[in-house]
């Protein structure tokens, strides 16, 4: 089992050395040499223009038992602060690690900080791995994927979980390719198969019409992105902090570099749809941009954010960042109030996993009522002011 090199065919072009994600190939004394860093990922085989490299048969068999151990959560962070989904995944990851009788760790790339460690105080996290290189700079997909893949190759976790945020969904597919393993997107359920110890990854597909459970049987790590707000963060106990394990990684190669020109957070466009507990969403039935004023008032009363259907966005009543649905964002708040939204399949796909759904619509036959828990049949212009008045009374 291993990487085979036909030295007679090899032209010493060096492409394999360059393409190896793990730095496992070296050119020594007129020959290409494989080091123990090799994971048989096959990137060099693919890159070799002379077809001098091959992987010996049987190399892709079942992973050696015990060689891959531990559950990892990707520590998505912005300026050293972890994204809320990281804590949710620590909650789920701890359950999985218990079932597998292995440690749970958080892994990230960038520059380790004391704040990162202290944010994990009292949580069931054994180690915080940080793939470090100053040249990693501000977050960018390609160099961070490479750093994370290096970390994975060195420490071999059996499972790697990340939030299905915009970043997680861009980064993880790259990591999966570098590790030549499977990745399941947007999971809403994770479990361990009691017999095989495999990670059972459950996710909605076809707009939530079916659920599929997926396994990665022969490849490691088993990778999954998980929807924010589905898992529950664990409570903190004690003052223990994880062991900080800083792992120096090579400087990213220049051809992968993406330059960040500006990173602007325009206040009016800062929309936290996927993190909101309460969402008030408006559709075509609002009749115009002014209709969102009433929705904003209701959102303020309930402490929520504003969402919208595709129709309202396409009409130009509200920016795209607010769009919920298949071509917008998938949300899962505790309370979703759909106002003047008929509830096309494409919209329902983005919100039907919400905790409680309330629909306000003049048409009693609107499909939105099929997924709603409570429906008010009536004109929102009459219903919402009454609702806001009632809620304010309750507050007092």
């Amino acid at each position, binding site marked *: 089992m291993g990487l085979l090199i036909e030295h007679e065919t090899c032209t010493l072009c060096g492409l394999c050395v360059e393409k190896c994600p793990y730095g496992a190939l070296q050119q020594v004394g007129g020959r290409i040499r494989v080091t123990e860093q090799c994971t048989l990922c096959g990137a060099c085989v693919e890159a070799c223009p002379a077809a001098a490299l091959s992987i010996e048969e049987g190399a892709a068999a079942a992973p050696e038992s015990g060689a891959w151990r531990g559950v990892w959560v990707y520590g998505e962070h912005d300026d050293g602060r972890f994204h809320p989904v990281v804590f949710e995944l620590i909650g789920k990851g701890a359950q999985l690690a218990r079932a597998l009788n292995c440690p749970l760790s958080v892994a990230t790339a960038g520059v380790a900080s004391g704040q990162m460690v202290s944010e994990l105080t009292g949580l069931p996290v054994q180690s915080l791995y940080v793939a470090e290189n100053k040249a990693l700079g501000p977050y960018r*997909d390609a160099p961070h994927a490479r750093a994370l893949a290096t970390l994975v190759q060195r420490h071999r976790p059996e499972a790697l979980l990340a939030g299905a945020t915009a970043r997680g969904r861009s980064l993880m*597919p790259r990591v999966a390719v570098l590790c030549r393993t499977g990745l399941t997107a947007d999971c809403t359920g994770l479990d361990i198969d009691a017999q095989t110890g495999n990670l059972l990854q459950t996710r909605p597909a076809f707009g939530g019409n079916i659920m599929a*459970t997926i396994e*990665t049987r022969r490849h490691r790590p088993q990778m999954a992105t998980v929807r924010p707000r589905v898992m529950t963060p664990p409570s903190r106990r004690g003052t223990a902090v994880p062991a900080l394990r800083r792992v120096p990684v090579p400087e990213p190669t220049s*051809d992968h570099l993406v*330059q960040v020109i500006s990173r602007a957070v325009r206040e009016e466009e800062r929309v936290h749809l996927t993190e909101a507990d309460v969402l008030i969403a408006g559709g075509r039935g609002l009749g115009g941009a002014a209709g969102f004023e009433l929705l904003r008032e209701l959102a303020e009363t309930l402490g929520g954010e504003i969402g919208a259907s595709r129709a309202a966005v396409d009409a130009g009543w509200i920016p795209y960042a607010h769009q919920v649905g298949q*071509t917008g964002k998938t949300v899962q708040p505790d*309370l979703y109030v759909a106002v003047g939204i008929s509830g096309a399949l494409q919209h329902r796909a983005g919100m039907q996993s919400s905790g*409680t759904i309330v629909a306000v619509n003049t048409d009693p036959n609107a499909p939105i009522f099929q997924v709603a828990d409570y429906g008010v049949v009536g004109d929102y212009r009459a219903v919402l002011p009454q609702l806001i008045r009632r809620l304010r009374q309750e507050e007092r």
Partner: protein
Amino acid sequence: MRIVVCIKHVPDTAEVRIDQERGTLIREGVPGILNPLDAHAVEAAVRLKDELSARTTALTMGPPQAEEALREALAHGCDEGVLLTDPAFAGADTLSTSYTLACAIRQMGDVDLVLCGKQAIDGDTAQVGPGIAAHLGWPQLTYARRITSLGGGTIEVERMTDYGNETIRAKLPAVVTALKDLNVPRLPSLVSRMSARRAEIQRRGAGDVEGERSMFGLDGSPTHVVRVFTPPPRGECAIFDGEPEQAAADLVRALKERRII
């Protein structure tokens, strides 16, 4: 300048059928459309073609009927369509799909830019675009809402992040995935539809794509669907259809009972 748009032919219906034995989706017999987000990638390609006199190739992998999506892309203005189709490609997951597409793109030799929709509406994974970029070793610019400049060997894109917006610049060749925000796709004229009907689609099988055969299709896919089920239905919807004042009061009471507020 050569631009490749990767597109997907997706079912246009909620009627989903499953091959219970293999645990894969049966796409035959279900009417298909061009994946809506891919239409924005196609539009972006066609606009760049007009600006930079680029050559645009629409590329897809799928069963023979996926050709329809390519014809749609041609009707929207793409120059040529390439269909990767072979029983050996069937059952591919996102790793294998992105690998096969990357092989085909590499084989074209002179590609400067790959455009994809953010995700397909059947799988919703958003993994194939970044997967292609990773297999090719190219930079990726995902969730693009505006292409601010292209030329001189670089591309600059304004993209949506979890934290707001950012503008990033990458060296070409690169992969861009499109948000709906990127543009408004044109409506093809009857004439362009008719010529797209007659256009020749280039078909390539597993023997034509230079790559490791073991990475194609079901065999090259690390993930396997082990179970498919329908989600548990939500309970009945309680309707309040009285006067607004009464309906609001009833709703607030119900939400309080559920401890939502």
